[in-house]
């Protein structure tokens, strides 16, 4: 009897299991796919592999990936991919209003849901989805779709910014441009250059990341955005220090504008190693640059770095003229009336260089910092005396410096 029932039980169990699997198989029946605009847009949301539950890996790289796409975003994107076009529209229409400074955690999550729905709807319909939002008269839906459109297909979406500005005001304008820029930097150089051209004169200066295979040399040669050039150079220096340094060396030899990038690549290297290592790495490129780029780049470094960090650079500049450029740059950015220049001046070896730096700063010329240019001669002397005391300048040096202050 038992032997007789066994095949039936097995068949029933297999059937139940097969039925359950059919019911839970991933379905694409409700999710129309393919962009209506016919233009290649961003890939559909990636999905984490379903499988046996495992705790998330506790290493930095895995965690940073989850920070890039938090759980809530992952859930909202996965849900959006399964929804019909009508359902996506309903979610967008129900999105909470965008109110500056007032965003509860619930509203924040509902905006994540709206962004996911917008990205999916734009992926399926292209600019038609933005036109639908314009007709629907809902600011949050229109904003989410415009942002998604600018990120995925900026050339097609950008003209729709005019309708949004006329209808709802202009305060979100830069968030659309930012969405376009950030997404393009994660795709490739040509897309990033296209966005810079579309929003020409946009004053872009920052992106949260570049594509893994981003072609930095091509980008640096072609971009017209000076701040973005510095950001890209810094990112490249973090990924491939030698290649970025070679590009900096070549750039500064031909174009003085590269002098502004010196502190960015120094910072990039110093962040990942130490100020000492970054100074050892960068200083030969600086001292190998032609004048006046050489002194400008070194002075810029001095003015952009905290005084406590200037010492490492000082040690790696063998020539006095470069040390003076660095000290004068640091004194120029001193907003504390001389107090924060102390560390920089202390890093100058020997009294003679200290006196030379201060004398140049006192001269009242182009290199003079504001705190040694402003006020009466008496005021300026009063600011100089404590510095000379702390630096233990000799009497002869003191007289030289006090006489260097122009009268009046």
């Amino acid at each position: 009897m038992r032997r007789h029932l066994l095949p039936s039980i097995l068949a029933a169990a297999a059937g139940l299991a097969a039925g359950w699997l059919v019911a839970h198989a991933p379905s694409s029946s409700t999710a129309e796919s393919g962009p209506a605009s016919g233009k290649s847009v961003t890939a559909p949301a990636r999905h984490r592999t379903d499988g046996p539950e495992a705790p998330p890996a506790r290493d930095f790289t895995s965690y940073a990936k989850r920070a890039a796409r938090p759980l809530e975003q992952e859930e909202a994107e996965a849900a959006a991919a399964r929804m019909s076009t009508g359902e996506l529209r309903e979610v967008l229409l129900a999105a909470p209003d965008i109110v500056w400074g007032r965003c509860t955690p619930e509203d924040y999550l509902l905006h994540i849901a709206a962004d996911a729905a917008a990205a999916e709807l734009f992926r399926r319909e292209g600019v038609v989805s933005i036109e639908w939002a314009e007709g629907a008269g809902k600011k949050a839906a229109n904003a989410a779709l415009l942002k998604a459109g600018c990120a995925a297909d900026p050339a097609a979406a950008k003209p729709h910014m005019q309708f949004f500005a006329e209808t709802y005001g202009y305060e979100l304008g830069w968030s659309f441009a930012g969405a376009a820029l950030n997404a393009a930097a994660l795709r490739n150089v040509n897309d990033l250059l296209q966005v810079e051209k579309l929003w020409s004169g946009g004053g872009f200066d920052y992106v949260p990341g570049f594509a893994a295979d981003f072609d930095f040399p091509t980008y640096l040669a072609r971009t017209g955005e000076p701040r973005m050039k510095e950001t890209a150079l810094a990112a490249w220096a973090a990924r491939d220090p030698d290649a970025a340094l070679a590009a900096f060396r070549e750039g500064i030899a031909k174009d003085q504008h590269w002098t502004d990038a010196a502190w960015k690549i120094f910072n990039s290297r110093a962040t990942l190693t130490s100020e000492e290592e970054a100074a050892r790495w960068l200083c030969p490129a600086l001292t190998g640059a032609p004048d006046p780029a050489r002194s400008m780049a070194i002075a810029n470094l001095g003015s952009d770095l905290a005084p406590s960090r200037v010492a490492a650079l000082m040690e790696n500049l063998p020539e006095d003229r470069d040390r003076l450029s660095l000290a004068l740059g640091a004194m120029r950015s001193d907003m504390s009336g001389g107090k924060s220049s102390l560390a920089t001046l202390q890093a100058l070896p020997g009294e003679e260089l200290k006196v030379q730096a201060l004398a140049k700063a006192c001269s009242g010329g182009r290199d003079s910092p504001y705190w040694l240019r402003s006020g009466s001669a008496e005021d300026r002397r009063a600011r100089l005396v404590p510095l000379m005391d702390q630096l233990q300048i000799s009497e002869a040096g003191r007289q030289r410096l006090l006489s260097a202050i122009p009268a009046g």
Partner: protein
Amino acid sequence: MARLLLIFLLAGLAGWAGSRRVPAPSGEDRDSSAPGEIRSSAKPRLRTPDDFKSWAASRAPRLEAHVNWYTSYQAELGAWSPQDIRAALDQGIHDPAVILSMSPESKALHALLSEWTRRDPDAAWAWLESLPSATMRWQLAGSIAAGWPAERAEEALELVLAHRDSFENSKGYSHSPIVQKAFDAAAARGPAACDAMLARLRAQGLTASFGTDFPAGFDFAALVRLPTAAEELAEGRATHILDAWMARDPQAALDYMVSMNREQGAEITRNLFSGFNRTQGGAERTERAARLGAAIARLPELEQHQIVEAATTELWAGPGNLKAFIGAIPDAALRGRAQLAAARELITKDPPAALEYLEAGTDPANRLELLQEMLAARPKEATAYNPFYRQREQAVRKTLAAWNTPPERADAFVKLLWNSR
């Protein structure tokens, strides 16, 4: 065999149907994401706006339990051991992407250090201090400040004072959360402790300037009479105290500000609008603008007019602030005057808004003449303030059409508006 096949098919059908009858997990029963969570591979079945509302309600507590609730990826760190966190930090500081401050890698680094600081501030600080890169130490010091437990805030202030270099450089400073928590702790002990903290911060050149959490019933009137607070306010500093007072008791705060300005011979409008740049949110600013508009009714007429004129220049940039201020003025005549002043102020900055004020504050019979006058009186160098200015031409035309402006005159107005650029 056929019987077995039939059993298989029937069981399959039952399995499918049974599985489909299992209700879609609702927000409440599905949340597996408390600290210690494992990300579930079963994705929530979300389809309708109501599904998403339930989902948001269920996920919100997971976010709120952490230092910065909008860093939702911080929630999972609750299950990490200090060793896990430290190992990830040691790895993260060498990741090239952390040099971009808004990269996910940089955010991850900050989240890890904030979480560690929340649990063990001493260990987190010791780790930070051991890093060879001063640049990295400065970059991450903000996470120490953000995660530092409020109950040890005054102790943390000592740390900031002893290591200002780690929290400050030429690009800015990151100690604000600690300074603020220390000030909040002092405020909780009353006006005298608050004044002593103000003196301490003043001596170090520090300020607590954002949204102080004054306890309920705090005696602001007593605080502003104490020596350091009085001195700070007379110098136009520590006005966050007035912001908080304005939120609790607008009339008393306004009376104090006005009497202080009169006493010191300062402009009557001094400090009245300073808080608008500091208050945390747009809605908060709008509410403050409305409270101010309502509170000026008791002042002498001349001072009311001075405040109204100042409001049009101080408040126009925040959407809704000026509207809320004017809308709350109880006296209709003064309100009308404010609307005209706003129209005059905005005609070069935000023409569609200027037309709205003109519509609200004038009689249709002489509206167009007033517009003509305002356009003629504009400074010649009047320019647009934003790149979307021209895009608002349609809105201007729409309003002019609603006023039955003859088309050729509407063209002339638009031309006048845009020729000024």
